[in-house]
């Protein structure tokens, strides 16, 4: 499928370019915006991978919520235009990342992946595209994990509140 391939490579270029921007750009605000681009590109990947639900959730949660939080954080801390400085670990970090990339690529390329049987590809595509199967799994097989995650979210919300609650009485 030409269309799919073009989309894929386009998204790849965008995603990787934006990700590089996030880690290299000095201006933190622009980095945050580039991060949103990465998120949206990943959402595009999800659509290509027939995970529509995840794509939308990706936009909703990452682009719509997490990115906003990060932008807020950027805004509330100082020296944004030159805020994204590298530290002394640049060289080792780059080396480690490059080595890891080499290993991961080698593994991805060398592994004999066991593909989905032809007979079931159609079925799998239908199941993966619809959100009903995911919903069923979340409330049946993974119900416990689901509950645990919801408790985690609640705890995180309360924890964040507790961390940031003002201390008006202590002001001089």
């Amino acid at each position, binding site marked *: 499928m*030409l269309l799919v391939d073009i989309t894929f490579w386009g998204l790849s270029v965008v995603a990787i370019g934006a990700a590089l921007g996030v880690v290299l750009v000095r201006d933190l605000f622009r980095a945050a915006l580039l991060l949103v681009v990465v998120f949206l590109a990943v959402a595009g990947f999800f659509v290509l991978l027939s995970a529509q639900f995840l794509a*939308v*959730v990706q936009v909703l949660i990452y682009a*719509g*919520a997490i*990115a906003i939080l990060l*932008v807020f954080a950027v*805004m509330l801390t100082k020296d944004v235009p030159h805020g994204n400085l590298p530290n002394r670990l640049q060289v080792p970090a780059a080396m480690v990342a490059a080595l890891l990339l080499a290993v991961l690529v080698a593994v991805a390329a060398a592994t004999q992946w066991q593909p989905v049987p032809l007979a079931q590809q159609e079925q799998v595509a239908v199941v993966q595209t619809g959100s009903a199967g995911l919903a069923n799994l979340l409330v049946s097989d993974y119900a416990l994990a689901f509950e645990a995650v919801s408790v985690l979210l609640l705890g995180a919300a309360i924890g964040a509140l507790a961390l940031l609650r003002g201390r008006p009485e202590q002001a*001089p």
Partner: protein
Amino acid sequence: MSCQLAAGNILYENPLLRWVYDIAGTVAPCWAAYLAAGLAFMLLLVNGVLIGTAILTWAERRILARFANRIGPNRWGPFGLLQPLADLIKLLTKESLTPRSADRIVFNLAPILMLMPALLVVAVVPFARNIALADLSIGVLYVLAISSLTILAIFMAGWASQNRFALFGAARGVAVLISYEVPVVLSLLGVVMLAGSMSLNDIVAAQAVPFFLVQPLAFFVFFTGVSAELNRTPFDVAEGESEIVAGYHTEYSGIKFAIMQAAEFGGTITASAVIVSLFLAGWAGPLAGYLGWLWFLLKLGAVLFVFIWVRATFPRLRTDQIMAFSWKFLLSLALINLVATALEVYFLRGDSRTLTTVDLWVMAGINLALAAVAIGAFGRLNRAQVQRVRPPLPVLAPAGAPAGKAV
């Protein structure tokens, strides 16, 4: 005629698009024909929204004027109908300023990004039976996800302007958007539960009884929340001109200002379209097969009128009141609605796992009563609490206090 569309495809169902597809199919490869047909539909939608925006600006001004016992624009064209065109030309020819200290790229990107969600959301709205650009199975989520991107655009506009008022406006707007996202999403759960699907087309088809009757609380919460998210007047703290000049679009002028205005009014139109689909049974009506688009436009007009009506009626809320309204009032109502709907669906649907029309009427009765009680009760409760809020006394920073502790 080498290309065939599968039955059930959106393009196949729509005679106009099918015609475009068939014509293109004779001269181009199939994917290109598909692309062409899709683009044609998109053009239709985008232009429809933009033209609708123009009409809405005129309508709003006229109607507001009537509410204020004035006449409104009436010079240019019949009933002043060409007034938007005049405004457009004026704005296009004005100088488009960019502040020197602004972040130029982001500053220019923001209005475009602001218009985008308004246009993208229309893609899933069914204008007539089975006629939408994309009948996504997760349409409701898509609407929510795309519209949440507006926050980012507002932020970009406010930040890139390097203007304190713009930043204040953006911060207020973001706070409002984040707060109202929660009750809005929760209120839609009831609708999705009733329809058993997140596709807008299915939801419209499921409305044997319009959902604003079956889900009055959800309708109320959604309508209110959406007006807040659109920065429409009772909730327009983000651009309150009496307080912070013009909020996040203080520094915008010329064509960029025009695009922002278009985005705002376009957002109102798409939101109304979504409300029509979710709560007012969309294209449903007599002879829906042929006149669906007409019913849809009529209902759209009605919803838009209510928006304008609300704007004309209510005074602007204070920032803290807006927050309290969302968290203490709308969220409670949305939760009540969610629990009530879940229980009703659980008990009313029979072994067939579907809801009959009778079931829907029963639910409508229960929920209307519940809505009256809940809105009344929480209204009293919150009024008592809101009255107690006093504006904070101005705090003068003592000399020598460290600056920048404003977090």
